[in-house]
């Protein structure tokens, strides 16, 4: 374990060490078929773990599964149903 810091001050964005993806039961799968590049899946993600570019087959939108908790908001909100929730296999 690391030494305690002065007054337990911690470093910015150090939570990235915490891999919350292990919480997942379902995971989103981007079909990269009808994606219109609206980025809604990125905007509504409470984890801030969705990124990518492009549309339709060129779309690279995806979650960083190190952090994705599988809440399913992205799939629910995708206006063209280009994201589906599938059972996590671990």
């Amino acid at each position, binding site marked *: *374990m690391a030494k*305690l810091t*002065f*007054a*337990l*001050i*911690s*470093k*910015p964005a*150090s939570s990235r060490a915490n891999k919350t993806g292990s919480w997942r039961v379902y995971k989103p799968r981007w079909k990269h078929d009808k994606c219109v590049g609206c980025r809604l899946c990125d905007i509504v993600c409470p984890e801030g773990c969705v990124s990518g570019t492009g549309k339709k087959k060129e779309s690279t939108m995806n979650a960083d599964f190190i952090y994705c908790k599988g809440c399913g908001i992205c799939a629910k909100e995708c206006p063209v149903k280009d994201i589906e929730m599938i059972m996590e296999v671990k």
Partner: protein
Amino acid sequence: MTLEVLEGSKAVSDVIGLCKPDVISAYPITPQTHIVENLSEMVADGKLKAEYIRVESEHSAASACLGASLTGARTYTATTSQGLLLMLEVLYNISALRLPVVLTCANRAISSPLNIWCDHQDAITLRDTGWIQLFAEDIQEAVDMHIQAYKIGEDKRVMLPVVISMDGFLLTHTFEPVEVPSEEDVDRFLPKYNPKYFLTTKNPMTFGSFAEPDKYMEARYILNEVLNQSKVVIAEVARDFKDAFGRFGGDLVEEYNTKDADIVLVGMGSIISTMKEVTDELRKRNNRIGVLKIRSFRPFPDKEIVSCLKDKKKVIVVEKAISLGFGSILASEIKSVLYNSGAAPRVDSFIAALGGRDISKETINKIIEKSMTEKVDLEFVDLNRDILPEDFSE
């Protein structure tokens, strides 16, 4: 040296002005008011370039000091009694965040019944908060202690808040000839506050995290160690202050005629002056008696107390607070440090002056006489049994 006859509150606010706090935040409460009124005037007149936050409660006064201190400002607040209790949880927070806030406590009794007069019940309640707690004997010492408080608290080895207790009314509202140091001398003695860590976008750190059971105890251990280690700094600053200003009221304690004494009176705050006078008179009649002033109540001067008291015949502790359901607090702590030292003298315990009852020289003489004739486990000085009902449930 120029002496001025000043009211205690005026003298303290003048010296706070010289310490140049950046942010002052306070809420009015008797008998602290004159201090913050004077500071308000200094800010209003442009004599003190500080932000004065007129908060809606003492809880917020302490919280605003916390926020300001964490942003890199030197901060000041003052309160007493109920106000201090309302601040309490914030005070724990301030020490753990290692913020050298300075607070003046104009000691006053705790309600109920409501009582605005002096005792130490308010300040004593702070004993587990992680604050350095200094008690002033007189107005001059209160003045000097405030300068020292910033120097101690802001020392890189310490970085802890300091509360200075000065007896409400007895020191805040009385007049004494005092010397308020010059601005140049204070500037020379007290460097600008320059913390290593503070809230800034240039280094966006996170303050006030929570810690799980595998780290919390270590965090509290560190705080306890730092507070204990601050003894060195308290003593060092007292000596440096003497070199710079020529006055010395003791370091962690002040021993007054204790070296050859058989009997030592122990106390905190303004009672010490009365004890000194009484013992001076008794010495003239060949009584070997002295006084131990507890100047730093936290950190507790365990070694100094043992070294002063271990070979005495009798120790008489007079204190202005009570742990209800148990009894004495200061006397208990003194007994506690003496117990394992191997040479524990008899310690008699007196609780006096709760709610501002006067302690005259006569009172002290009576206490000494009583202690000479019997073993006093716990005595309430001047308790008027005539007004006690037969049955406390009626």
